[in-house]
């Protein structure tokens, strides 16, 4: 196992380094001064690289990649009320975004309705949209053409409910389900490992996940029911190599569970998708994508016996690193985002979100939002990097680094196997410890100036920047609560109770819960009520916190 080394020696502000000190990347790999053919002697181009669109997909999952079609520009767009969010979405689409990502507010993320006492002061928080009922989903999707817009729901533990509402609205509008495109993040494993917005213990959560995958598999053929995420692991502190290994291990776990639930691998695997971060180290990012593609392809074919080449394709959405951005000298973030975005493109991402430069200070303003979008458009249309596939293939450094990341992954996989698998590893605190250690080491490196952050620990200025919090309009919270009250009063209580009882029964049993949820949301049962009913049966997960 690669011990994480902090980069020794600091680069002085005039650019000079202490000589003869080792260089390490973010994953702790020592970087050689120069890479030569010998470093990739063992690489067999046919076996290890192949061609784009062919196993092992190292060079790209499609034959012609961006020459044929550019990656999807998929910017996050949410604002606390469904109607405001709807406006922002239509605005982004008009400005050239080709897909939409939607975030939820804190209460919705935690499975609570806007009128829940725990939601007080947080309705519409963090730029997320408050979704209590199908009413909100209707407002959110107003005037948006569901069969031509690709929508990514940043929804996890509550995915089954959000999906139910989305499907219900599509049905109401007469849109055939097989035309719906988009993604539900729906990755509960990473919640336990990093983001912590879980409700129930791992096993019932996994059941819900498989239910959504099965349902989409049967009815929403073009919809990706899961986006297996590394981004959050990296944000919590995981090094790129860990992000890679843990994401893949989670992916394999979902595949195992889906197969156990009786789904033939080639039926669901083509719709599995991933979500990566691109952090500061340019080439490490690129190598990560390539290694991911190769490992996924080989494992799906060799371990899970996938026959359909599409089951072996590692399709990924990428976001530039929020945690690399600074509140000080926020303009510098424009450059960070540009470089990170470029690495994602050279790595072969299928869709990309670029952060706005004021991320550390506020929810993006229209101006900063636009600039982030333009960043991608300039790369796409002006830089020429899209004109050939996998341009860095063959670079000794990139190939050597790709090989190295693949090899390191194997040792992480063994560690997790030895603990009994991903879920036992979660329960044993493996991820908490590993990620905490990496996060703490990173902070130490910054504080000891072993890692330079321009504007923070080098080239520092005292300046009067301030955080500009977009406050959820308190009026909005009041209005939302009133609207919710009206909705609840307009319902038939017996019908609501019936739905909730039915949900509880489904939780006790093994039937797919999706049709039951869809029926319930059509009867205006709220998200909080549904999650509450599930909680009655599944219980609540309590974590032993390690720091």
């Amino acid at each position, binding site marked *: 196992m690669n011990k994480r080394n902090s980069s020794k020696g600091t680069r002085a502000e005039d650019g000079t380094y202490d000589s003869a000190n080792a260089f390490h990347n973010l994953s702790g790999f020592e970087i050689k001064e120069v890479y030569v053919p010998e470093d990739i002697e063992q690489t067999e181009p046919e076996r290890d690289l192949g061609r784009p669109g062919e196993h092992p997909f190292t060079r790209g999952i499609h034959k012609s990649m961006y020459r044929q079609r550019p990656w999807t520009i998929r910017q996050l767009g949410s604002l606390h009320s469904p109607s405001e969010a709807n406006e922002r979405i239509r605005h982004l689409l008009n400005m050239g975004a080709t897909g939409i990502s939607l975030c939820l507010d804190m209460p919705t993320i935690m499975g609570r309705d806007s009128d829940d006492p725990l939601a007080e002061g947080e309705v519409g928080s963090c730029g997320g949209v408050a979704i209590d009922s199908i009413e909100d989903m209707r407002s959110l999707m107003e005037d948006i053409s569901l069969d031509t817009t690709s929508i990514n729901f940043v929804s996890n533990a509550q995915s089954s409910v959000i999906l139910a509402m989305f499907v219900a609205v599509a049905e109401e509008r007469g849109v055939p389900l097989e035309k719906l495109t988009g993604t539900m993040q729906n990755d509960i494993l990473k919640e336990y490992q990093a983001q*912590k917005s879980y409700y129930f213990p791992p096993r019932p959560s996994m059941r819900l996940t498989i239910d959504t995958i099965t349902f989409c598999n049967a009815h929403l053929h073009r919809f990706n029911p899961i986006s297996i995420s590394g981004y959050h692991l990296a944000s919590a502190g995981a090094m790129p190599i860990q992000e890679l290994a843990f994401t893949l291990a989670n992916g394999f776990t979902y595949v195992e569970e889906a197969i156990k639930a009786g789904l033939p691998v080639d039926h669901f695997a083509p719709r599995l998708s991933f979500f990566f971060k691109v952090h500061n180290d340019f080439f490490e990012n690129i190598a990560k994508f390539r290694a991911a593609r190769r490992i996924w392809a080989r494992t799906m074919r060799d371990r899970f016996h996938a026959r359909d080449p599409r089951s072996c394709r590692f399709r990924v959405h990428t976001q530039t690193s929020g945690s690399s951005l600074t509140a000080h000298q926020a303009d510098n973030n424009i450059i960070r985002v540009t470089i990170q975005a470029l690495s994602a493109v050279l790595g072969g991402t299928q869709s990309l979100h670029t952060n706005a430069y004021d991320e550390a200070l506020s929810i993006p303003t229209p101006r900063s939002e636009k600039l982030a979008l333009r960043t991608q458009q300039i790369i796409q249309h002006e830089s020429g990097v899209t004109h050939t596939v996998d341009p860095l293939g063959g670079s000794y450094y990139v190939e050597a680094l790709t090989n190295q990341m693949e090899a390191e992954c194997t040792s992480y996989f063994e560690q997790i196997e030895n603990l009994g698998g991903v879920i036992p590893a979660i329960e044993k605190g493996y991820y908490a410890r590993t990620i905490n250690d990496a996060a703490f080491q990173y902070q130490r490196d910054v504080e000891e100036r072993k890692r330079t952050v321009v504007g923070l620990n080098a080239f520092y200025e005292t300046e009067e920047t301030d955080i500009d919090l977009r406050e959820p309009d308190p009026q909005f919270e009041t209005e939302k609560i009133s609207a919710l009250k009206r909705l609840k009063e307009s319902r038939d209580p017996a019908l609501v109770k019936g739905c909730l009882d039915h949900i509880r029964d489904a939780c006790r049993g093994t039937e797919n819960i999706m049709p039951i949820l869809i029926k319930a949301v059509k009867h205006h049962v709220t998200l909080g009520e549904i999650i509450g009913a599930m909680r009655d049966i599944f219980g609540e997960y309590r974590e032993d916190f390690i720091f």
Partner: protein
Amino acid sequence: MMKKRKKRILIAKPGLDGHDRGAKIVARALRNAGMEVIYAGLHQTPLQIVRAAIDEDVDAVGVSILSGAHNTVFPKIMALLEEADAADILVFGGGTIPRKDIEALKSLGVGDIFTTGTDTAEIIRYLNKTLER
């Protein structure tokens, strides 16, 4: 001579947000600096935080808020401590908190607030200095 007691600090994350990287790093840094640190964990209500602070007999409570709910949460914590006759417990914090709000919180008796980019050494110095008195 009475042996100097180690400083006892409670670190907590109130509300619904689960992003605890910063809180954990601070907790660990304080522990490495020789303080006794209790990490209250996620999804704490102000009441739970105050109860834990009193039960654990801490010298200070560090509250991490990234969600913007600080103007609701901090005053509640201060009020509950006052009610429980425990206003001598220092309350400090961190997260995404605008400067203008920090001033307002300080006038309520909240200690220093350490926003993003702060060096953990600064927090340690602050606690050492403030808790000496």
